[in-house]
């Protein structure tokens, strides 16, 4: 019966070893995933890409962007859909983390209107009219 006991021990040791490895790799994947979906990173990524899109647009351009992930993350942090994106002059601010948000300016001297159609952000780039 000793051989049976020894075999049981080997299986147990391997099982513990495999579980520990799985735990380790899960923690690693979780760490990378958390870093990738960080709200601060999202704010920076979206404010810069929207600013670049506006810079590259000509008047009468309509831009549609899928903001599903951003809105989901913002809601988690207590930010309403309407407060996610703010346009003031030629500065765009994206707030996902519920703090100050991230602002980036664009040099294209146009007037931009933004609104949400469900989870899609619509940007309407128009010629600036003299006040």
């Amino acid at each position, binding site marked *: 019966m000793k051989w049976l006991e020894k075999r049981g021990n080997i299986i147990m*040791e391997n099982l513990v070893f495999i579980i520990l490895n799985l735990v*380790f790799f899960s923690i690693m994947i979780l760490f990378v995933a958390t870093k990738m979906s960080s709200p601060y990173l999202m704010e920076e990524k979206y404010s810069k890409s929207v600013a670049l899109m506006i810079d590259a647009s000509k008047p009468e351009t309509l831009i549609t962007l899928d903001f599903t992930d951003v809105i989901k993350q913002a809601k988690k942090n207590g930010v309403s859909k309407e407060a996610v994106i703010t346009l003031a002059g030629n500065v765009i601010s994206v707030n996902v983390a519920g703090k100050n948000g991230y602002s980036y300016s664009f*040099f294209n001297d146009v007037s931009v209107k933004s609104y949400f159609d469900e989870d899609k952000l619509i940007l309407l780039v128009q010629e600036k009219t003299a006040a």
Partner: protein
Amino acid sequence: MDKTISIYWFAILFIVAGAVIYMVVSFYGNPLDVREMEANILSSKFAECIAPDNLLNEKFLSSYDEQIFFDDCGINFETENSFNWKEQKQYFLKFRIFNFDSNELLSEGNFGNSNLYDFCEFQKEKEQSNLPFCLTRKFYSIDSNENKFLVEITSVISKLEKNVK
């Protein structure tokens, strides 16, 4: 024997974990540098203004007022009020127009923060990411009388605090 293998195995795991953490933190800890794209767009926009449909806007051959440039070209160098950017402009644009045949300089103009242009001299041989980004583009153009010109545009974008760590 088994214990020795496990110790080595866990040592390897720790090394792997350390490397992954280091790479992720250094990659995601750095801001996204979009200045090259910005400079490309700015150059294209200015090129369209200086030579719409590749026909040189003759206003640029005479002296050119900065405010007229901003109004005509639809460019706005105002930035957000962070890192003292309101006082120190983050953009600079320079244009030079040469006679295509004789290479004679006919006209030139600067717009924005001219101090930024000095950094382009340092980067002529090697680009340095911790300095303002410089981009020079040249193109051929003609005027209404079919005179040929070479137009050179240099765009400089600083915005270091938000693009470089």
